[in-house]
């Protein structure tokens, strides 16, 4: 735990210094919204379509973050440094996943309002509580899968390709669930109650992969 905090702290510091990941993610998603707004000369979207656009955007932005997650560790020997320390290895998983989770939250704090302003037809505010719940679950899934995939990809000769390549398919179920869960919230005629089924699937998905990740992560670090 102390370790995870130390690593997380380091990662956030690094992000503050290099300013590489989060701004890129945020700009990317805003760019997408702008494209849809002006490009798809449909001033507003709602319902399932809106949910889809939002989810897909966040997912892609997330992938961009995933790709950078372990680059510094690899290029600058952070892995070795961490492995030399007398600490529990799964702390790295915890730290990286939390870092990614935080990045995603920051991203959404920027992107979701932007979405509300740029693209969304129905008002955002009434749906916010439910929305936050869904997105939190989604972020959790992306964070866990993303960390795992990123750790897998970063040691291969094709980091930047393999990450998204394995990550996107793996995340499809989570994406389906998220989009379907958000859809009803953005109905033009005002939000419907959260579809519990999809929340359940999302939660299940998070749980399963969290457990898998915890079980296998150490093997990604071993010599």
């Amino acid at each position, binding site marked *: 735990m102390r370790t995870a905090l130390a690593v997380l702290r380091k990662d956030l510091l690094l992000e503050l210094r290099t300013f590489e990941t989060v701004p890129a993610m945020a700009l990317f998603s805003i760019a997408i919204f702008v494209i849809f707004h002006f490009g798809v000369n449909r001033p507003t979207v709602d319902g399932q379509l809106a949910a889809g656009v939002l989810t897909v955007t966040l997912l892609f932005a997330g992938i961009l973050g995933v790709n950078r997650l372990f680059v510094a560790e690899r290029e600058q020997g952070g892995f070795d440094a961490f492995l030399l320390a007398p600490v529990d290895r799964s702390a790295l998983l915890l730290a990286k996943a939390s870092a990614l989770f935080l990045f995603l939250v920051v991203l959404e704090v920027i992107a979701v309002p932007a979405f509300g302003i740029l693209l969304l037809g129905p008002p955002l505010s009434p749906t916010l509580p439910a929305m936050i719940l869904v997105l939190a679950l989604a972020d959790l899934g992306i964070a866990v899968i993303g960390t795992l995939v990123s750790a897998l990809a970063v040691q291969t*000769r094709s980091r930047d390709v393999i990450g998204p390549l*394995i990550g996107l*398919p793996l995340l499809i179920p989570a994406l389906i669930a998220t989009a379907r869960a958000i859809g009803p919230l953005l109905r033009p005629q005002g939000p419907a109650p959260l579809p519990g089924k999809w929340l359940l*699937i999302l939660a*299940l*998905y998070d749980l*399963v992969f969290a457990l*898998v990740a915890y079980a*296998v992560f150490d093997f990604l670090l071993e010599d």
Partner: protein
Amino acid sequence: MPTYGKGLRGLSILTLVTISAALILVFFYAPLDANQGFIQKIFYIHVPLAIVSLCGFVFGGLLAVMHLRTGDRRYDMRSYVAIHMALIFGVAALISGSIWAKASWGHWWVWDDPTLVSYLIVVLMFATYTPFRFSIEDPERQARYASVFAILGGAFVPLNFVAVRAAQGLVHPRVLTVSGGNLPGPMALTFLISILGIALLYVTLWKYEMAAKNARIQLRALRRRVLGDEDISPLQRTAAPSL
């Protein structure tokens, strides 16, 4: 190092028998489908192929778990072969499915059906398994990472299945909603036999492949012992596990 040849002959014979039995049942016993007619019989190939391939991927994942638990590289080899075979079966399922689709829906492929598309995703994802292995030099790391990949995939298949089931399929039938429930008796029997047959086929092929791989590795080991490891050619990269 165990030889995988053991019991292969018996198994092969059993497989042959079961499959031919299945075929006989399919063509002479199972009744013609009321509205689809003869083409429906591909059901007895397609569905088992699809299901066995999915199970094969999961099987590969379980073997990968064993590899990581025991640290025994042979499990990695087994997992590799299992996934390899499942991939072949998967492609076969795709093909048989599309034939059926062409016959009964008029298109080779229906994209807006979750079952089909998600299955394709699964197959494609495991299609990256080999290239993924290939892009890691160090054999040990390759083995470990491939196992993690396999486990991810193994966990992914059922989850994906659930998510897809929840998102109502549009055209793709759902017979096995409560596992073979509403199949008429003879069809059910035939179906079970053919599933058994395909499953046996999978196991047999798996064992064959394992035996072959083993032979190759032992040969290489012998060669190394004879030539001596002084002048080893620089690391040649391969996707296949090398012990």
